[in-house]
């Protein structure tokens, strides 16, 4: 859930699908960085890239919808909206006005596991961004009247209407999460939250949430781009040094998530075509199997020659589209296959074809070329990720993402190595272990009867 425009899925790390082999595309995959910690516990990473005179300031707070309590779903994201509405020394409205006047863009987003904020701006204005970020980290509650909660609550409800209720198939992801994860598991509710919980969110909740989760020791700051490392370190110490440390945040302790059978449900929507969703519980991010399942997804639906695309969309043309993805997250991941039937075709036909193709891979490993093709795509995507410093998914965001996952900021080469080492037998084993036919979620969306 993002403050504006782009909506992020419930993936923490967007691990791009696909990278080596005809002519080796090798080149150093390194993002040199300086890392230090302030007295208040704030982790700081600096990275220099002078391609264009732009600096990126990226902050991750290690709190997401998984930290929410029952009856307050959607709160982490609603809180993200409030972070733009002013702080003690930044009157309401000034945050965006000051930034736009400096030629900056900014945004934030919330996932299950974390909330991130970025400011991309001309490098001469870097200190403005550090002032604004530190002021809201230190003094948000000094400028948080109860009315503010009401206004952003209504904006968020409209975000939900636009992205879910009014979006074809928009309610499906909410249903799938409810079926995949056991009651009480924090991934069982949507990041955007339930309408009634958004209604219930109070000013007191805001104060408690900020004090508990928005402390520097629960955050990580990356400054990247056209910067001087020493001067930037001094500026970070100047602006963030006075932010008060908070209590240590206890890790989320979710109930065990296991599927023991097929859970199937049918819902209707105002759509013309039937759609099928299959979902499995899979290893958490960076755990063994996580990268393999990215490659499984590529072998199933990456490109015209992938198994499911070729069978369902290209050869038999029963489906308009089919996609598969490993949605990686901190407490556990899910692997999903989504297929939309052509007019006159059905989910039953698609499900039969999908199951047959998965069964083939269970019996016989994929061809070496299929695996290598997927790995080559992954590798090239890693180089594409080196181009941009700011925004969602830019280098600043990626450094924070790797730090959050525990690998150290520059985990790019190690991350890529996970993919390069995979063999056809690994792919077969992952399918066998993680995509069983008798333990999964099946959601069918059927067109509503026209009135």
């Amino acid at each position, binding site marked *: 859930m993002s403050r504006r425009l782009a909506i992020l899925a419930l993936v923490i790390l967007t691990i791009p699908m696909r990278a080596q082999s*005809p*002519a080796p*595309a*090798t*080149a150093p995959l390194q993002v040199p960085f300086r890392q230090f910690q302030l*007295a208040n*516990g704030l982790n700081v990473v600096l990275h220099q890239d002078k*391609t*264009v*005179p*732009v600096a990126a300031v990226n902050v991750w707070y290690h709190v997401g919808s998984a930290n929410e309590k029952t009856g307050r779903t959607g709160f982490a994201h609603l809180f993200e909206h409030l972070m733009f509405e002013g702080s*003690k*020394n930044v009157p309401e*409205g000034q945050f*965006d006005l*000051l930034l*736009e006047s400096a*030629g*900056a*863009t900014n945004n934030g987003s919330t996932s299950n596991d974390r909330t991130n904020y970025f400011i*991309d701006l*001309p490098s*001469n*204005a870097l200190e403005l961004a550090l002032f*604004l970020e530190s*002021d809201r980290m230190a003094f948000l509650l000094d400028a948080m009247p109860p009315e503010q909660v009401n*206004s952003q609550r*209504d904006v968020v409800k*409209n975000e939900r*209407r*636009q*992205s879910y*209720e009014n*979006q*074809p198939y928009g309610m499906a992801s909410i249903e799938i999460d409810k079926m995949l994860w056991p009651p009480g598991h924090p991934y069982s509710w949507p990041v955007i939250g339930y309408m009634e919980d958004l209604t219930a969110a109070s000013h007191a909740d805001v104060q408690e949430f900020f*004090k508990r989760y928005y402390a520097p020791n629960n955050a990580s700051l990356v400054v990247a781009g056209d910067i001087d490392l020493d001067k930037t370190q001094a500026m970070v110490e100047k*602006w963030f*040094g*006075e932010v*008060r*440390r*908070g*209590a240590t945040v206890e890790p989320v302790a979710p109930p065990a998530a296991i599927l023991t059978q097929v859970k199937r449900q049918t819902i209707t929507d*105002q759509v013309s075509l039937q759609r099928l969703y299959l979902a499995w519980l899979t290893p958490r991010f960076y755990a063994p199997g996580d990268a393999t399942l990215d490659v499984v997804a590529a072998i199933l639906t990456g*490109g*015209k*020659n992938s198994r499911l695309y070729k069978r369902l969309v*290209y050869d038999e*043309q029963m489906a*308009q589209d089919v996609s598969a993805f490993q949605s990686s997250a901190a407490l556990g991941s899910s692997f999903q296959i989504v297929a*939309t039937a*052509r*007019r006159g075709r059905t989910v039953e036909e698609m499900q039969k074809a999908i199951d047959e193709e998965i069964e083939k891979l269970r019996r016989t490993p994929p061809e070496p070329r299929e695996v290598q*093709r997927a790995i080559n795509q992954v590798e*090239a995507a890693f*180089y*594409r990720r*080196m*181009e*941009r410093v700011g925004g969602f998914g830019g280098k600043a965001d990626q450094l924070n993402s790797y730090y959050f996952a525990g690998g150290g900021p520059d985990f790019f080469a190690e991350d890529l190595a996970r993919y390069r080492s995979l063999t056809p037998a690994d792919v077969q084993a992952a399918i066998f272990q993680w995509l069983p036919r008798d333990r999964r979620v099946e959601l069918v969306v059927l067109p509503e009867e026209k009135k």
Partner: protein
Amino acid sequence: MSRLRVPTAIAVLAIVIAGATGLAQQKPDRSKPPAIGPAPQLTLPPIQKRTLSNGLSVWIVEAHKVPLVQVNFLVQAGSADDPAGKFGIASLTAAMLDEGAGTRSALQIADEVDFLGANLSTTSSFDASAVRLNVPSARLAAALPIMADVALRPMFPQAELDRLRQERLTTLLQARDDATQVAPMAFARTVFGGTHRYGTSALGTTVTLKAFTTSDLRSFHASMYQPSAATLVVVGDVQVNTVLPLLEKYFGGWRTVGGTARTPVALAPQLTQAQVAIVDMPGAEQSQVRIGWVGVPRSTPDYFTLQVLNTILGGSFTSRLNQNLREKNQFTYGASSRFDMRLSAGPFFAGAGIQTDKTTDALREFFNELNAITKPVSAEELTKAKNYLALGFPSEFETIGDLASHLEEMIVYKLPDNFFDRYIANIQAVTAEAVQKAAATYIQPGRFAVVIAGDRKAIEAGVGGLKLGPVRVLTVEEAFGS
């Protein structure tokens, strides 16, 4: 939870680190935002222009940060060149380029491109078509011959046409379920009508799609894809003197075979009176609203003024429309406006997704802002908008894909060579008077069309009560031209 209850061990550690870093002890002055230094200069790498032996233009920009190269084959022919009765042919031709070319089938092309870790896309807009390749630079020589086949020697197999036809018919069917696609389509149809090319989806209609043959595709490709109308844009990790022979080898032998000159798209007649159209989406939780009329072509002399004007009105987060409709009134997740500039005048529109029960209130606020923008803008607002555009400009040149698309823009719209170098100065030169004059010319709310995709039963009476113009109901079929 209190920040006072810091465990002792951490407090001790804190002192040690603070001692080491020193400056953390000083409190910064937060009484005013820190001063901003002089704006940094953006120095763009030079564009090196060359010509292959067949006359094909090549523009090369070297950029060596990442071992990737972007090669865009750009053709100055697009949906705007669709003949009457064949709306959709440019788009389908572009989509069919990689469905079998040279000696390779669609599946072979996809397999080889994917195996190289490359991305190869074939697309078109109203004004141009393109084959775009992004590939690790070490594999450029392996990818170029495939790309050249796709661009120059597509086979247009019947079976692949039949498949893409069904895919596109299905896309049009699905678009009708989605208010965010229905509203813009209904708006285009209302403003430009069924005859002007801009009034119909780039995909065409169900009627035109069903009629296309492989010879339609061959004939469009043969007549419009010509060396004289094409350019190769190369950006990334290459050297001019090593990449040129490769380009010559794969593209230099392409010859002109009696091409057809481009016919400019006629300027659409401007709307003369206000009108309201509702497309019924029963039960919709939001009304997707588009308000506007015929805007300006990309060649408008008021280009920079309109960038500033639109930034103030609806082109940024602090713009008047977003502040009013989102931040002040919470009717929407976001409101914006835009001049869609093409070779001929595209639409100007303001729009948002509005919660259904606020549709009438929101329309009133839209018109308040559209009327207010014709009054003088304050110096502060003007400076903010100009700085937002000018100072933010360098960030648009960060990736090789960004650079290549800016070069495409220069080629398609025949911009002067110094266009990007002069951009910041041209934005800073815009005056409040010029903005006001442009607003009076291009923002005339009394003649605007209002198009809403929403729950008719819930909104029709309220919308009618605003007396914005005669209200009619448009069917989805009418919006999509069947």
